[in-house]
């Protein structure tokens, strides 16, 4: 056991990294000479002593001494170790030049994973599962230390402690010096943290770090109390840990470069946290089941977020719909908020109240608010316009995002604006720059939205013939314009408006169309399969069109498109090109927006059918009110955009062209 262990501890870090890609257990291959020679003695000693300690008094150790205990639980299942050791040789890769990179990369991703997992594990059970999976995939010591796959909370906690402890040496490699001691930290939170990657750790606040150090010190003391032998080993371990980081930090920084997998937010971690945090708008795709991030986001949030009662299992990662209206709360804050420009604030409130809805309307409102804000903006002393204004815009964006999650089209518009700010010539004076930006925004609105709509109308009208029956779902501004224009042209056609609860937006459209004298039929989405056989064309709007041709649109669109496809009715999606996005999405789960769960449980004005009145607080009831869904490209015959009528397969081409445009405008 001893030799094995020695080698194991030595190779730990490498195991972890290499384990991802090297299945054949080629035992004969021994590691590169230098790491062995340097690190073998310490870890070997550590492990053996740990084993000794373990056998002598396991329970107290696990409770008290950090480093000692962290080692001990791992020791308990010897067979696992052996299996571990069999795996271990693998890590020493014949490919020494490659190793470093791959190592660091996998470490990064692994840690990142772990981080998510652990922080989310208390709540999300399916993440635990995923953890189990990751664990299985990687023949890491950590993996071996999860006996049952770590499915329940306690198991996770228990195992996470030993995992980090066990690997003291190995983990340390990727972590800063102080880290090992931290492992012993008694607080749960800290137990979670050590498993995280280094950048995240660095982002912990001062207070947290102090707490950690405190804990470490206590742990050390405890370890000393354990016995001189043990303390020696721990110190040895620590020493080795301290020795290694110098080597190991390099790969981890490399990782930061190479592995963007680790998400952009992590990168920011190298800089001072406070400043960065202010700048860093919450990513639109923040995972809301990641507790620590949610906490952080909340702390700097203007809008007070309240927790939804029963989150639907599969949709925990989405921003949950806030209960109650924050309007009064926010309105009262109106005069205290200097960071947010009043116009932006107004738009945010309008988003919350639902006064502005619809992709184009929201985007235009936002851009105009930014225009106003830029007009009133003046660069503070000792700051440059490009940087400060970007920060300002970021804070506005994060405010708006809190009011209602940004749509993809808004994201594109913001990207455009930031791009323009960044590309401002340095020679411009402030007023010139501001005028420049305002006219840019103006141009974006007029060219990319208003003019684009006109072009779309022009194209789409050619597809309407006399005698057609056109079906539409919900209320899309582009579709409305098309229908009205076709009517103006004197085409004889009929419109079927399919609508769905809870928003019943179709009624608004119906009202406007009937007002203009079109002949309309109104049906609920339940009747779509009945009505579809008489339809000749389906016109749909879209919130966004993604790179694989998936149409991301108001919930119910996918259903209508599917039925239309089944009836062989052509489905035309009308969408401005500024709403295209290079992302790919296969389902409606990864990215979506949640609406008010009450809206689907209650029917206003129908007291007699409010059957759910009593049960909405029940633990067993989870209400899911999705706002969007994703329509697979198979169901879409054509996408009408300002670049003409294209098949859904050509969206990436437009995205390419358009992104180039974005820089140009």
């Amino acid at each position: 056991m001893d030799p094995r262990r020695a080698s194991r501890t030595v190779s730990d870090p490498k195991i972890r990294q290499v384990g991802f890609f090297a299945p054949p257990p080629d035992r004969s291959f021994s590691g590169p000479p230098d790491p062995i020679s340097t690190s073998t003695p310490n870890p070997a000693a550590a492990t053996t002593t740990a084993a000794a300690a373990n056998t002598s008094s396991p329970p107290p150790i696990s409770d008290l001494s950090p480093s000692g205990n962290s080692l001990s639980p791992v020791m308990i299942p010897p067979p696992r170790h052996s299996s571990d050791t069999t795996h271990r040789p693998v890590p020493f890769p014949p490919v020494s030049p490659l190793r470093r990179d791959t190592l660091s990369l996998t470490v990064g991703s692994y840690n990142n994973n772990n981080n998510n997992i652990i922080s989310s594990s208390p709540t999300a059970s399916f993440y635990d599962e995923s953890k189990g999976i990751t664990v299985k995939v990687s023949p890491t010591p950590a993996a071996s230390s999860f006996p049952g796959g770590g499915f329940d909370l306690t198991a996770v906690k228990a195992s996470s402690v030993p995992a980090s402890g066990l690997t003291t040496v190995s983990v340390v490699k990727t972590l800063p010096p102080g880290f090992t001691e931290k492992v012993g930290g008694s607080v749960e939170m800290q137990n979670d943290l050590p498993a995280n990657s280094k950048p995240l750790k660095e982002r912990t606040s001062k207070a947290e770090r102090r707490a950690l150090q405190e804990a470490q010190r206590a742990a050390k003391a405890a370890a000393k109390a354990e016995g001189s032998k043990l303390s020696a080993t721990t110190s040895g371990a620590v020493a080795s840990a301290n020795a290694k980081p110098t080597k190991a930090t390099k790969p981890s920084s490399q990782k930061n470069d190479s592995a963007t997998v680790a998400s952009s937010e992590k990168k920011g971690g190298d800089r001072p946290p406070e400043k960065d945090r202010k700048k860093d708008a919450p990513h639109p795709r923040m995972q809301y089941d990641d507790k620590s991030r949610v906490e952080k986001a909340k702390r700097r949030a203007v809008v007070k977020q309240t927790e939804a009662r029963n989150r639907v299992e599969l949709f925990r990662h989405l921003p949950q719909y806030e209960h109650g209206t924050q309007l009064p709360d926010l309105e009262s804050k109106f005069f205290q908020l200097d960071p947010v420009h009043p116009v932006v604030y107004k738009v945010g409130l309008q988003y919350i109240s639902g006064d502005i809805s619809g992709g184009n309307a929201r985007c235009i409102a936002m851009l105009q608010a930014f225009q106003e804000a830029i007009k009133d903006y003046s660069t503070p002393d000792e700051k440059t316009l490009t940087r400060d204004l970007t920060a300002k815009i970021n804070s506005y964006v994060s405010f708006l995002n809190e009011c209602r999650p940004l749509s993809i089209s808004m994201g594109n518009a913001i990207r455009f604006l930031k791009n323009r700010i960044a590309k401002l010539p340095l020679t411009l004076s402030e007023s010139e720059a501001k005028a420049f930006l305002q006219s840019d925004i103006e141009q974006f609105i007029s060219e990319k939205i208003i003019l684009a709509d006109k072009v779309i109308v022009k194209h789409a009208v050619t597809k309407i013939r006399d005698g057609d029956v056109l079906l539409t779902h919900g209320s899309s501004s582009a579709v409305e314009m098309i229908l009205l224009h076709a009517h103006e042209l004197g085409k004889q056609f009929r419109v079927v408006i399919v609508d769905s609860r809870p928003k019943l937006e179709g009624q608004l459209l119906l009202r406007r169309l009937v007002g203009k004298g079109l002949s309309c039929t109104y049906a609920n989405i339940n009747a779509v399969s009945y009505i579809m056989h008489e339809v000749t064309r389906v016109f749909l709007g879209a919130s966004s069109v993604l790179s694989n041709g998936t149409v991301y649109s108001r919930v119910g669109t996918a259903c209508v498109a599917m039925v239309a496809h089944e009836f062989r009715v052509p489905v035309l999606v009308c969408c401005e090109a500024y709403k295209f996005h290079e992302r790919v999405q296969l389902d409606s789960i990864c990215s979506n927006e949640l609406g008010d769960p009450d809206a689907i449980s209650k029917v206003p004005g129908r007291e007699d059918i409010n059957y759910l009145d009593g049960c909405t607080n029940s633990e067993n009831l989870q209400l899911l009110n999705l706002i969007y869904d994703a329509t697979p490209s198979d169901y879409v015959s054509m996408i009408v955009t300002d670049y003409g009528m294209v098949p859904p397969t050509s969206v990436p081409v437009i995205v390419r062209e358009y992104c180039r445009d974005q820089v140009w405008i």
Partner: protein
Amino acid sequence: MWWRSASFILDHRLQEDPPNDIASSSKEPDTLSKLSPPQTHSSFMAAADPFNPIPNPKISAYYQTRAAHTAVVTSDWLAQAQAAVGHHPDDSPAPQTQLLASPSASGKSFCVINEFNNWRKQPDLAEAVAAIRALAAVIRASEATTMMELEIELKKASDSLKSWDTTSISLTAGCDLFMRYVTRTSALEYEDFNSARSRLIERAEKFGEISCKARRIIAMLSQDFIFDGCTILVHGFSRVVLEVLKTAAQNKKLFRVFCTEGRPDRTGLRFSNELAKLDVPVKLLIDSAVAYTMDEVDMVFVGADGVVESGGIINMMGTYQIALVAHSMNKPVYVAAESYKFARLYPLDQKDMAPALRPIDFGVPIPSKVEVERSARDYTPPQYLTLLFTDLGVLTPSVVSDELIQLYL
């Protein structure tokens, strides 16, 4: 499948000389009536005895009686075909009656359409090329002194060409392409007028060359897809497809071809004549026998009047049903089309295009109350096509739109 088996190929190689003798002895390629016997024999032999690995007419008396029996019908068809061929000697894909065929436009009163028709009559010239040549002639004849004037003149000419025949896709596409070049070439704005003008003319000339080369390129590209012993179903008369098959025959590939009859203008008969001249075993089918023969077919080869934005094609009536049958039997459908046939059109369904009408002769008088569907072409959606052979390369249907976007945006 016997025609794919190695033994068939070997046998065929052994037999190569006798059939050649027969063919050469029995054939004067000029006359159709002489041409028909070998052709019918090869096709009917295949029909009569598809499991006979040696296509030798001497073997089976049964075959001979059969051939003699059916030859009556066939020769009748071929007579009709001959008449049809005689009627339009060099018909371009869109069977338009040649209205204004005054060969030489008199100097001053220059007319694009006349010019176009002039060019169109050349046997190997595609419509798009003819259109571009006609536009080049406009430039030559033009008395404009500035680029703007010339552009306006060109625009007018191309509009009148397009409106003269709204149904022809390649004509429209050719005009659009050239106009695109005129308006887009930034170099034109900086040069002096005369050099810009000559540049345009040069470009137009080049376009003709490119289009001729395109057929060669397509033929070369498609050779990889024609394997020894395969059976190819063709529909309509497409010069590109003919080039493809001709090249394959020259490369000593062993394959046979099924030609649909191509009612009402009997394009299939013409095509089979051309193939028979090349000694390719060819078999004629009536248009409704496609599904019946599809299980013998290895691939479907069609040309295209136009390739539209969705990646689908607009082609002679009947292409769609062939593609449907082929799709349902998992046979590949290959389209050979030059890139100047790519058009910025997006039909959603069959009725969503300008119909190209043509007279159909049923041989008997049709009561006036009976309606006749006279559309000459249909639209095949991209999901039923396997690959497109173009001079840009072998493309999947979805790439067409990419190319179009890059061309026109």
